[in-house]
């Protein structure tokens, strides 16, 4: 298990306990955390689960794939610490991971 903190654009914080293996996107969607849409259900097709990963954690999550990079590249308000949360798998090592949501997924 790992605690993942989601911070909405307006600052609202949600701490969610997640099983290793699930994606950061799934964690938000299933617990009803707003701000992550995930239209495609996690197949890296829609870029509506965009998050900013806190710098302390950015180097610890799995590396970005070419397909994710290309998809993310066309999302709105992309920053150097942007990722698609459907591609971040939770591991025990990520206990404490903090991600922030963009103003909008569209």
């Amino acid at each position, binding site marked *: 298990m790992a605690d993942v903190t989601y911070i909405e654009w307006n600052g609202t914080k949600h701490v969610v306990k997640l099983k290793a293996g699930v994606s950061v996107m799934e964690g938000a969607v299933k617990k*009803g955390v707003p701000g992550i849409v995930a239209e495609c259900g996690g197949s*890296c097709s829609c870029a509506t689960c965009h998050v900013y990963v806190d710098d302390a954690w950015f180097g610890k999550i799995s590396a970005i794939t070419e397909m994710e990079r290309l998809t993310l590249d066309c999302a709105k308000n992309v920053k150097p610490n942007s990722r698609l949360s459907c591609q971040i798998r939770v591991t025990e090592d990520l206990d404490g991971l903090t991600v922030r949501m963009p103003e909008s997924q569209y």
Partner: protein
Amino acid sequence: MSDVIPANQHVVIVGAGHAGGTAAVLLRQLGHTGPLTLLGEEALPPYQRPPLSKAWLKGEADEEALLLKPLEYYAVHGIAFHANTRVVRLDRDAKELQLQDDSVISYDVLVIATGARAIPLRIAGADLEGVMFLRTAQDAEELKATIGPGKRLLVIGGGYIGLEVAATGRALGAEVIVVERESRLLARVACEALSEFFRTYHEEQGVKFELGYTLTGLEGTYRRVTHALLSDGRALSCEAVVIGVGAHPNEEIGKEAGLECSRGIVVNLEARTSDPNIFAIGDVAHRPMPIYGRMFRMESVPNALEQAKQAACAITGRAAPSPEVPWQWSDQYDVKLQIAGYPFDADLTLVRGQPSSKKFSVFHLKGDLVQAVEAINSPPDFMIGKQLIGNRKPVDKAKLVDSNISLKEIVA
């Protein structure tokens, strides 16, 4: 809007698929405070269907991963979810639904999200064991238990479902033959360049195709399928047959109650039917698509989500969301196909990139306007193409096909 719905009304959603499940969640998120009931025919609460032909079939996703929300979510949010519940009749005068067990549920506002059902093959032997559809988690379970190394799977229909099942069948070690009555794959839904690309790709993975043939019958021993008969008289041995020849909207409860129907229940931009207290969303709805100035029925997750949003907005007194660009996707092996828009009235097809590089896209234009884009392993072409379809700005065709020019430059 003239039809404002008071917040204390009982909203009943018939159909607990992607559309119905999402509508229930959104209604609560958008502040509907009245009673909310979600009726589903299947045993599971709302779940994702796309993985049924892919990750779920391969055993890479469990039931928990499949569900849109955990079961307890519904009770926590005051959504009365009833599984294994089938509605047989709608009485609009009494505002009542009659269920299969003859009990009755009354509603103030009704959302019909009954989806579509697989079209059966009307041939001898279609009811043999081992002859399946792929529509529900239960169907996928049955298929998973039947295919594997040394087994031969026959896929009837070379559309998206058929091709995804073929890809997964190969991944599970089965021999796969796809029978398609048209002379090319994806004939109704994709352009020729794409048909050709997928045929070659699947053949490289060992899939065999029988294009231009139909099935005339299925034969079996001990009620289990063993052979399929092709229109040229050949008999192909097989352990499993999956039929993916299209779907028919489950519009009957609406149609029988006198709602306007036309290959689906007809709705307006708010997802409202000809009865102001009844909405229809998802695969069952025949809906307006403003960017193309026409009505049609779509079978896709993004469509289900969009219409769930439209209905939830209308019911909670919000303005309808701005018109979207329809899109869909298909994953086969390591190929990601993303499609935005529909090539209505297109008079020009342009290819960007090289199909041989397994990374290219096909743009469909009407004059200088992009109507649709089909992108293979090219997310930027899909994402920018979707923007171009939505903003209806004329494009420079020479730039569009020049892979050295970033598409971002074109849309800017």
